[in-house]
């Protein structure tokens, strides 16, 4: 794949995660309730997640644009997406049908399938960026 295509992939993923993290940072109190809505974490962990996760997304988004951090950021985001897919599925099987509110009202997923497919796409993109360096060694 050509160099500029990799760059576009990195910029696209960075933009998605920066927006997702930035929207959460705008109202961390609301995100705290979103985290609690999944009913998977005890309150202290939910509170810590609400503070940490938005910044983690934003920092990793910037990491994707910095060559010396790209692989670590890409792997981190891929693992975060996989974890989120598991969380979505667990919540679904417990009868809880909810949107993460990751993109505010800009992007509301019509179904769990779309939501998981979107996150699978992000996971594949992040893994591709992570694997690329290994291939070029």
């Amino acid at each position, binding site marked *: 794949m050509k160099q500029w295509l990799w760059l576009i992939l990195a910029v696209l993923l960075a933009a998605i995660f920066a927006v997702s993290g930035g929207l959460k940072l705008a109202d*961390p109190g609301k995100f705290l309730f979103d985290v609690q809505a999944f009913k998977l974490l005890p309150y202290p962990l939910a509170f810590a997640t609400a503070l940490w996760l938005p910044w983690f997304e934003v920092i990793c988004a910037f990491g994707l644009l910095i060559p010396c951090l790209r692989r670590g950021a890409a792997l981190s985001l891929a693992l975060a997406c996989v974890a989120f897919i598991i969380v979505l599925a667990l919540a679904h099987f417990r009868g809880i049908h909810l949107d993460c509110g990751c993109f505010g009202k800009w992007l509301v997923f019509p179904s769990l399938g779309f939501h998981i497919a979107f996150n699978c796409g992000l996971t594949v993109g992040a893994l591709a960026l992570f694997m690329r360096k290994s291939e070029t060694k």
Partner: protein
Amino acid sequence: MTCCCKQSGPCGCCVLVKQIVLLVVVAALLGAVTWAVHPRMPAYAAGRLEAGEILLASIPANALWVDARTLTEYKQEHVPGAILLNEDDWESLLAQFINTWKGQPVVVYCGSGECHASKAVVARLKEYMPDIEAYHLKDGWAAWKEHHP
């Protein structure tokens, strides 16, 4: 520098771990700053759900909705499928509830976050039926209307 995997110089794996640790730690530090200064981050205790409280987003799809407001408010508008159960006419409304309830989770709401009728109804339901899975909705009817204008 000798790497943990005995190579001379840091290996790709160790570099990767260091990158991830750096990202995690920086995010944690910025998260701590957010807690300290962000005007929309609630104090630690204020963001916690009370015992038996449930968020609108967490409500199971098969839940039975119970309206703990007054009959007048219920007649004006209520959550689709909700049945009325309040302390004004407890005995007859409870009979209606028992006829409707099929063992599914129950979500009780009243007017707003400040009202206590939903908590009272949940408490009385649990007196009658200790095994019932009953919750009171955080912010009550106001929360519903916010999401269903």
